[in-house]
């Protein structure tokens, strides 16, 4: 996870361990969400597009063959998986970072600029986290529900500020211990 394994030792081992556990938890959450999306949508479409015509051919009336609300469940899983993914992308240095202005400052400022960038990103994300909680609170207060499956929205919307919070804290950790900062990928599409 870290870009510089040797130098990473400079950070307290507790912090390194905490980041690793945190990263693994986010990975499993995201994998569970994306697997759920894949499974439920595949079963829904196969049910509607393959099983239904097959049963019709055999003159069997089995009622609806898709999964009720599959796309709504999948959207919730997508939001949770994606915002868990912000943390994963932060931990692995996978965020899209425009490099167009990287050369506009002297090259030897690089490490200091990276550290400043991490502080700024962390603080901005903390601010976004705050406004995320404000938004979720308003949905909670209004007891808004989702169409089709009639579930309360706010528990799922909570994934947004929590995802931003995870990324914010991680950026601030990178600012404190730059050795934990992941090496950016060689290229991003």
């Amino acid at each position, binding site marked *: 996870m870290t870009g510089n394994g040797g130098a990473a030792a400079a950070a307290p081992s507790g912090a390194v361990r905490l980041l690793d556990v945190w990263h693994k938890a986010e*990975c499993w959450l*995201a*994998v569970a*969400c*994306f*697997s759920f*999306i*894949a499974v439920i*949508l*595949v079963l*829904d*479409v196969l049910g509607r*597009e393959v099983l239904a015509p097959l049963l019709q051919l055999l003159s069997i009336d089995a009622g609806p063959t898709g999964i009720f609300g599959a*796309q709504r469940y*999948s*959207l919730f899983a*997508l*939001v949770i*998986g*994606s*915002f*868990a*993914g*912000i*943390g*994963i*992308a932060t931990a*692995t240095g*996978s*965020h*899209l*970072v*425009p490099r*167009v*202005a*990287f050369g*506009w400052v002297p090259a030897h400022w690089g490490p200091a*600029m*990276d550290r*400043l*960038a991490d502080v*700024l*990103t962390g603080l*901005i*994300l903390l*601010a*976004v986290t705050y*406004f*995320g909680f*404000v*938004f979720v609170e*308003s949905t909670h207060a209004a007891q808004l529900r989702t169409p089709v499956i009639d579930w309360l929205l706010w528990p799922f*919307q909570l994934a*947004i*500020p929590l*995802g931003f919070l995870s990324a914010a804290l991680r950026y601030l950790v990178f600012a404190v211990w730059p050795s934990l900062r992941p090496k950016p990928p*060689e*290229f*991003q*599409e």
Partner: protein
Amino acid sequence: MTTILLIALIVGLLVLRQPLLIVLLGATAYVHMVWGRGQLDYIVEDMWVGLDKELILSIPLFILCGNVMTRGSIAQRLIDLLASVTRPLPGGMAVACVLACAVFSAISGSSIVTMLAIGSVMFPAMRQAGYDIKFSLGAIMSGGTLGIIIPPSIPMIIYGLVTETSITDLFAAGFGPGFLLTLVLSLYSIWFNRRMPSQRFDPAEFVKAFRNGIWAVMMPVIMLGGIYSGWFTATEAAAIALAYAMIVEIFIHKELKFIDFYKVVLEASKLGGSLFPVLAVALSLNIILIEHQVPQNMVGFLQGYISSPLAFMLVVNVLLLVVGCLMTTGEAILVLAPLLAPVAAAYGYDKVLFGVIMILNLEIGYLTPPVGLNLIVAMSAFKQPFGLLCRAAIPFILLMLGCLILVVWQPWIAMYMVTGTF
């Protein structure tokens, strides 16, 4: 003055090495503060609204499907099949390379994945067979760019989401230009290698390669056939394709185990984590821009200076080619498509056609320095100097520019599959 401050904010964030997510969040917050009611929680609300679209589900499915199908030996199987067919042509191996890139593009949806998968097999093989190094590199790098124009294409889905354009229509419109590019690159490969000896067609080799490769070839046939025939929506096609990919990889090719599936999904999650939040913020920015009639104001402003649609198209193409040199495809589409697509529509260009033209421009950007991704990736993948790669790309860039001009001049090349008329 407020616009100048907005530009200064964006430049400042870029100099401070901020991720695109933060740059877009900064711009959106500024718009809310200066032109809106200053309620920044609306940003998050608009992000939720932006993500609450069922069409968006096709993205993780296509990413997963591409990740499942493009691991293992699919590339080798496709190359074997296509090489067995193109052997009698002069430069047959080069044509096989271009065709393999085209078919692989219809599976992966990514330019870099296509170039690496096909190039890692074809580059050593073409060098060993005596093909010119510059030509080989150029063919592989330009063949890789087909990944974003031949559907399914992730940039097309992103364009469709941020401009509210039908993704099925975009996929249909990508077919013609993708076919044109494949044809032009193949013909150039034959012409350039016309002195290379051709070989006899070997039916036994073809049958063996067909047996191994047919499952991979059938994937785009099922997926695109389903979309074009109107049988599936884009999301349904992605789900069917994923089911097909899993069955082929687990039961036929026997190259996917549980631990591989975890890695495949994790890769998709990583990509999703960097893409979806940015997409959500871009959609949030889009909502506030539309609320404040920014695209309409841009239309009015531009029409004051440019009256001819052709002149507009020329200016936009030059802009996109320059942007393609400086930004990645995803960044350019997220930032520019919501602004430019309504303007193009006001000049009489269909948003579907404009999307294809935009992606064709950005496709060329994969081959132009300094941010030409295929050049950068090829440099490390094939261990070749950057200068050589840039020179190798030049004839292919010219051919691709020719195709772009042809599509702008004769829009039916893209639109025939959408409208059914010339």
